[in-house]
């Protein structure tokens, strides 16, 4: 293999598994260290840089970081990254003076954001401080989009939403509530805006066209039903409720049902466990509340007697799962009827743009999704950008935030007549963490503690109303333990081949056998000759330049390195050093456009 090019920021960025997996690339190890030092405000602001909504995401993020966490490969459970984010939000001091502010004068550019959800708000967050005049059009009478209408209050209290959204709208956003956009053509034709961003989500819940569907009013579409509950248009539900589907919306539907009158809630899944769409922790929380999850049942018909929904008929399926874990389509082995009073359909969402004319240059694909450039977030029509679920179908909040940042960069370039395809590069700083002979400026001692569990409100108390937040947040003791579980993957093992005297000290001390000195070869060959099996092909091998004395190479399998720094401590020549990599992600505020040229409104 060729020597690894560690000057490419992506190499060390990938070593920080959590940050790499996060769509917004939140600097997780850094904020966890700040929490460990009791610097909650700093930890909050570090989060806010990239993910904008730490308080919200600290409760309801889909956490792509956690399955990626290296700790999950060392032992069973990853670091409770999401819970720690909430610790930063819960315990932060007043940070209002550190928030971005809009400049006194406008830069003369006007931007329309359609929908007041997380994607649009992120664009506003990035563009307001640059002097843009931002208008948000929202169909509902409140902000937050799906975060407010679809996530129940017992998971995400409205105060948290109000506060973090307020940080953005407080920068002088012109917020037009109760103002649905009926026609994008009209908005474009008005010539009022230099760019338009569409962040309207995926607002149409999937229907289930089976017999009896329209014969009862007790059959609901999940996301619409959640919205009605959120706005108190629906205040009760029958005692026996069936939820169809087993994604995260289904989890919110079943738990909401329990709080407005249901006694017996069953979640009906087509497939067996292991093939559910819901996140493991949302499933756990629902099952803790005695929701029954019934697998291998495929909906067949609604049973309506005298205009009243009495039950639902299902095919019972059996599946074959092969050695690779692939599941077949299933075979019907039985049919059952399960009695119920209400059915809530939570089988997915679609995009819907009835208000976007099809002849104004915005292309749509066969699934009615707009054709959007994945990098620039611009549609086929110049000056019209998309983000969040509106762009590529349902994802999650953190993806919407990532889209928002990219769209803001593009809009900023677009409004200054720059090529939006020319993106600023990702940068990286490396700084040694050595403080003394065996002292490092980070907590390098491996802590074997297991993952802390989130304390919940007592099961006897939590169902009284929808406003009781179930998760209490980590205690001080839990926080102190959990922060030490972080392996500081951003403190990189940096190797300088010329300094190595090939004494083997690093190899002998490494607790997880990730180092080897050997003759060079191609990757497959090297992987077969390392100190310990290197079977995780998703994790890179670091290969040094030829070593001075023997011409062998130093190879490091990044997979299981716990960043304990013992290699650097045992190195007599300083060939190994622990250096913190800070990934510098470009944001709109990093651009320095001097010449501002007037551009005509979104063409």
């Amino acid at each position, binding site marked *: 293999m060729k020597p690894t090019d560690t000057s490419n920021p992506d190499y060390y960025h990938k070593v920080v598994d959590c940050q790499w997996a996060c769509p917004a690339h939140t600097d997780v190890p850094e904020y966890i260290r700040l929490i460990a030092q009791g610097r909650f405000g700093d930890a909050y602001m570090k989060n806010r840089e990239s993910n904008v909504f730490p308080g919200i995401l600290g409760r309801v993020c889909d956490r792509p970081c956690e399955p990626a966490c290296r700790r999950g490969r060392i032992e069973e459970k990853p670091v409770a990254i999401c819970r720690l984010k909430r610790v930063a939000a819960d315990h932060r001091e007043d940070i209002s003076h550190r928030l971005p502010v809009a400049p006194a004068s406008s830069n003369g550019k006007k931007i329309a954001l359609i929908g007041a959800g997380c994607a649009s708000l992120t664009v506003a967050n990035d563009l307001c401080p640059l002097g843009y005049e931002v208008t948000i059009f929202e169909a509902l009478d409140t902000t937050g989009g799906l975060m407010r209408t679809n996530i129940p209050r017992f998971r995400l209290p409205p105060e948290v939403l109000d506060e973090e959204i307020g940080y953005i709208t407080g920068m002088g956003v012109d917020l037009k509530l109760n103002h649905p956009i009926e026609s994008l053509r009209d908005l474009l034709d008005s010539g009022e805006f230099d760019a338009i961003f569409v962040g309207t989500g995926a607002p149409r819940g999937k229907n289930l066209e089976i017999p009896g569907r329209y014969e009862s009013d007790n059959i609901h579409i999940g996301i619409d039903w959640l919205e009605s509950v959120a706005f108190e248009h629906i205040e009760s539900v029958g005692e026996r409720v069936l939820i169809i589907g087993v994604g995260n919306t289904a989890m919110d539907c079943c738990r909401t049902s329990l709080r407005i009158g249901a006694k017996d809630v069953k979640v009906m899944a087509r497939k067996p466990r292991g093939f559910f769409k819901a996140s493991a922790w949302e499933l756990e929380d629902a099952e803790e509340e005695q929701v029954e999850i019934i697998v291998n049942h495929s909906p067949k018909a609604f049973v309506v007697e005298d205009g009243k929904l009495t039950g639902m008929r299902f095919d019972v399926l059996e599946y074959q799962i092969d050695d690779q874990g692939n599941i077949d389509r299933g075979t019907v082995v039985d049919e059952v009827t399960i009695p119920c009073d209400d059915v809530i359909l939570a089988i997915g969402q679609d995009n819907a743009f009835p208000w976007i004319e099809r002849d104004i240059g915005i292309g749509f694909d066969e699934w009615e999704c707009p054709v959007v450039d994945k990098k620039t977030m611009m549609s086929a029509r110049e000056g019209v950008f998309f983000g969040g679920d509106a762009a590529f179908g349902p994802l999650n909040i953190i993806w919407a935030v990532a889209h928002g940042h990219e769209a803001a960069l593009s809009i900023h370039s677009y409004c200054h007549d720059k090529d939006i395809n020319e993106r600023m590069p990702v940068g990286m700083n490396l700084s040694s963490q050595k403080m003394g002979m065996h002292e490092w400026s980070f907590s390098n001692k491996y802590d074997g503690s297991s993952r802390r569990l989130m304390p919940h409100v007592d099961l006897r108390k939590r169902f009284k109303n929808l406003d009781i937040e179930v998760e209490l947040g980590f205690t001080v003791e839990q926080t102190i333990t959990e922060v030490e579980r972080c392996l500081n993957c951003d403190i990189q093992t940096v190797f300088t081949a010329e300094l190595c*005297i090939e004494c083997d000290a690093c190899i002998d001390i490494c607790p997880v056998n990730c180092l080897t000195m050997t003759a060079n070869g191609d990757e497959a060959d090297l992987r077969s000759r390392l100190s310990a099996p290197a079977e995780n092909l998703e994790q890179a091998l670091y290969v040094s330049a030829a070593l001075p004395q023997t011409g062998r190479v130093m190879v490091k399998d990044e997979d*299981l390195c716990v960043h304990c720094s013992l290699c650097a401590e045992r190195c007599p020549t300083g060939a190994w050093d622990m250096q913190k990599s800070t990934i510098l992600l470009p944001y709109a505020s990093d651009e320095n456009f001097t010449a501002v040229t007037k551009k005509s409104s979104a063409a």
Partner: protein
Amino acid sequence: MSYTGKPKIAHPGLPRNQLGLTARDYEGAVSTLCAGCGHDSVTAAIVQAVFELNIEPHMLAKMSGIGCSSKTPAYFVSQSHGFNSVHGRMPSVTTGANAANRQLTYIGVSGDGDSLSIGVGQFVHAIRRNLNMCYIIENNGVYGLTKGQFSASADIGSKPKKGQPNQQEPIDAVSTALSLGATYIARSFSGDKEQLVPLIQGALRHNGFALIDIVSPCVTFNDHEGSTKSYAHTREFYHQVVDMDYVQPAAEIKAAYAKGEVMPIELHNGSKIVLRKIDESYDPTSRAKAFKYLREHFNAGEIVTGLLYLDETRAEMHDLMGNIDTPLAHLPLSGLHPGAAELKRILKSFA
């Protein structure tokens, strides 16, 4: 030394030996030697060798004297027996331990100071007895523990960090052992585990006195330019003459060697040592020829390594003396203390 200690976690894919243990289970405390010390690599090689031999930790005894080398038994197989004895007296203490219990596997770790200066008398007599043990000399040419004065193994002309080059003739442990009739003699280098691990395995399984003289650089006092025991010098003048594989008793010899090149030698316990000559002119079964070869290459400044001499035929101490197999601790009192009548009978036999 490192303050944090080695984390008690391991790579989940580590191989396990017949006892179900991983190499990590054969480790000891974290080394307090200087970072980069060759001795730590020897420690790691011992861990690997003992792990692969499936030795039960409680059937191993680690013996040492005084010096940097002699600290190292604390750093491997923490669940075995150990005795850190007086300076240079490790061979004698091991003789006593071995006399009392010949069932254990004995590994002595010594240095050039411990074995070739203060303990040279003990060292030569252990060889003469053909004591069944693996005797490792971690040879760095200096007294590292007392700030790097030249030891008895320093080569003529080797430069110290400060002061004058050495002018005295070195004591070469390998030729000394050869002249005294040691039955397993090897030289190696701490920086070459591929060679070192099988050498240690063969030494542990050899039935008699097995010496491994290991060039193990002192990274603090003897790793500079002009030193003949530095990493760089050793690599430059490294001259491997015999390649050696250790083959477990049950395992078959898989590698196909050309006839004449390869010499499989069966050991006492049914395992095999497979020698492959790298230098055709070398004969590891002839003391006289080996001595000549070593002397010539020593004069040329080369460091001859590999299994240099092997004699599986000579009886070790217990066999010479006709001792019983049972450890003294396992004998009944009547066996250990036969009584006055028996003493009288024995005395009468001399009358």
